[in-house]
C-alpha cells in the first residue's frame, strides 16, 4: 500500500478560533475514506486546508510525499488533487459545459478531455441533456452531480468530496454514491469523503475517521465503525 496523503499534527485557526487541533490522517492509494463528524466539527476546514484554501497554523501535509501545506490552492490542484466543495459552488453564470471545461482548466489534451466529458455525461446523463444551459437552472441534486463531475474533469489522483448528499432527494443521493463508487473502482481515484450521512458513506468506504470538536476521536475500518456503539448512537440514529 502506498500513501497518497498524509496529514501530520495539523492545526487550523480562524483568528483566535482553533477549528482543527493536531489531527493526523492518512490515505492510501485507491481507498475511499470517510471523514465523519457533526456540524462544526471541522470537516470542511480540514478539506479546505488540504486543498490550500486555508493554511494550517501548524503541522504538515504531504501529497505523494511532498509538502503542500504552503502552496496556493491552484498549485495543489495542478498536482492532481481536486475538491468538490460543500454547497456545490458551481459557476451559476456559466453553462454546464463551461463548468466542466473549468474543471479541465489546467489540461491541454483536447482528445482526452473530450473522452472524460463523455465519461461524466454517461455517469450523469442529466448533465448532457442540459449541457448548454446555465448551471443556475439545475436543481440542487443536479448541481451536486455537476460539482463532482467538474472536480473529476481535472483528472485528479485524489478527489475530496464535501457532503455530496447534503440537502438532496434520496433517489439522487443513491445515484451520486453509485457514481462515487464507480469513479473509485474504474478510474482508481482515491477519495476522501466528508459526510453526515454516516451509514451511506461507511457502506462505500474502506476506512473512516471521526472528527469531534476539531480532534480525531475515532478511526478504523468502515466495518468496525458501522458496528461501533458510539457511532451507532451519534450518527446512525440507533
Amino acid at each position, binding site marked *: 500500500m502506498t500513501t497518497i496523503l498524509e496529514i501530520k499534527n495539523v492545526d487550523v485557526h480562524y483568528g483566535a478560533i482553533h477549528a482543527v487541533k493536531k489531527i493526523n490522517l492518512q490515505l492510501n492509494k485507491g481507498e475511499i475514506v470517510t471523514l465523519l463528524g457533526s456540524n462544526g466539527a471541522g470537516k470542511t476546514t480540514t478539506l479546505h486546508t488540504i486543498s490550500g484554501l486555508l493554511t494550517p497554523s501548524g503541522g504538515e501535509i504531504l501529497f505523494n510525499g511532498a509538502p503542500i501545506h504552503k502552496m496556493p*490552492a*491552484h498549485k495543489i490542484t495542478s498536482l492532481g488533487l481536486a475538491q468538490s466543495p460543500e454547497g456545490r*459552488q458551481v*459557476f*451559476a*453564470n456559466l453553462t454546464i459545459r463551461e463548468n466542466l471545461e*473549468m474543471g479541465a*482548466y489546467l489540461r491541454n489534451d483536447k482528445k482526452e478531455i473530450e473522452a472524460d466529458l463523455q465519461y461524466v455525461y454517461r455517469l450523469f446523463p442529466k448533465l448532457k441533456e442540459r449541457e448548454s444551459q446555465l448551471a443556475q437552472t439545475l436543481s440542487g441534486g443536479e448541481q451536486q452531480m455537476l460539482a463532482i463531475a467538474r*472536480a473529476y474533469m*481535472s483528472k485528479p489522483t485524489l478527489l475530496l468530496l464535501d457532503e455530496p448528499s447534503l440537502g438532496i432527494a434520496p433517489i439522487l443521493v443513491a445515484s451520486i454514491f453509485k457514481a462515487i463508487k464507480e469513479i473509485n473502482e474504474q478510474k482508481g481515484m482515491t477519495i476522501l469523503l466528508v459526510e453526515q450521512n454516516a451509514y451511506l458513506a461507511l457502506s462505500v468506504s474502506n476506512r473512516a475517521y471521526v472528527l469531534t470538536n476539531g480532534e480525531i476521536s475515532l478511526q478504523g475500518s468502515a466495518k468496525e465503525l458501522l458496528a461501533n456503539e458510539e457511532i451507532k448512537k451519534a450518527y446512525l440514529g440507533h
Partner: protein
Amino acid sequence: MSQNFIYFLWDCLQYFINGIAQGSLYAMVALGYTMVYGIIRLVNFAHGEFLMIGAMCGFYALRAHLPMPAAILVAMLSSGIIAIAVERLVYRPIRKSGRIPALITAIGTSLFFQYFGQLVFGADPKTIPPFIDEKIYNLGEINVSNVQIAIFCITLFVLLFLFWLTHYTKVGKAMRAVSFNLPAAELMGINTNKIISFTFFLGAALAGLGGMLMGYTMSVEPMMGMNLGTKAFVAAVVGGIGIIPGAALGGFIIGIAENLVAGLYKSSFRDAVSFFILILILLVKPSGILGKNMKEKV
C-alpha cells in the same frame, strides 16, 4: 412654427449623433470600471487616472514622432502596466480587508496619481490631435465627422472582442468563473491572481485607448481622470455595474443625454446630467438597467 419644429428636430439629431460619439468614449472607459468591479467587487476610483497616464504617455510618444497607431499602443500598454502594478502593490494586500477600506484606498490611489501627474507631467493641458485626419460630411442639416464614425466603430469592435473573449476563450471563461466564485475558481486550478491582473490590464488598456481617441474633444491634463472617471463610473452604475454590455449602454445614455441637454438647454448643465440620471436609476432600479436584482454577493 412647423419650419422651426423641423429645425428643432435637425438639432436634436445632431446632438444625438454627437452624443453617440461621446458616449462611445464613455463606454470604452466604463468597460474597465465594470470589469474590475465584476471580478473583485472593487470600485476602482483610480481608473480615470490610469486613462490619464496612458494618454500622457501617448502624448509623449507622439512628440517623439511615433506614428499615431504606435502612440495608441504605447498609451494602452502604459495604462495597463500601471494598472497591474497598482493592483499588485496596493489593492491585493488589502483585498481581504473589506469593502470600505478598499474604497478609501481606491480614492487615495486616485488622488495620489492626480498629484503625481502634476509633478511628473506638469499641470498644463496638452493636446492630442485627432487620430485620423478629420473630414466632415454634411448630411442635410447635420454634420458627421469621420472621427465620430471611427470612434463608434472602434467601440463596437471592442464590445464584440470582449464578448468573444469572455465566451470563447479559456482566459475569458476563467474571468467569468472568478467573478462568480473566486475560491471555487482557485480549486479548478485557476491562478486567480493572474486572472485579476489580466482583468486590470485589459480594462486599463481600454481606458488608455479611450484617452487617445478623446484627442478630438479635450486636452490631456493630470486632473482629467476625475471628471472622466466619474462619468464612466456613473455609466457603469446606470447600465448595471459588473455587466459588460451594461457599461456600454450606460456610456451611450450618458453621452447622448449630456449632448442633448447641453445643446438644447444650457451647456453648463452638461456635468449635472449624468448625476441626475444616476440618482434617477438609483431610485428606480438600483442594480442598473441591465442589472439583476441584488442577489449575488455584493
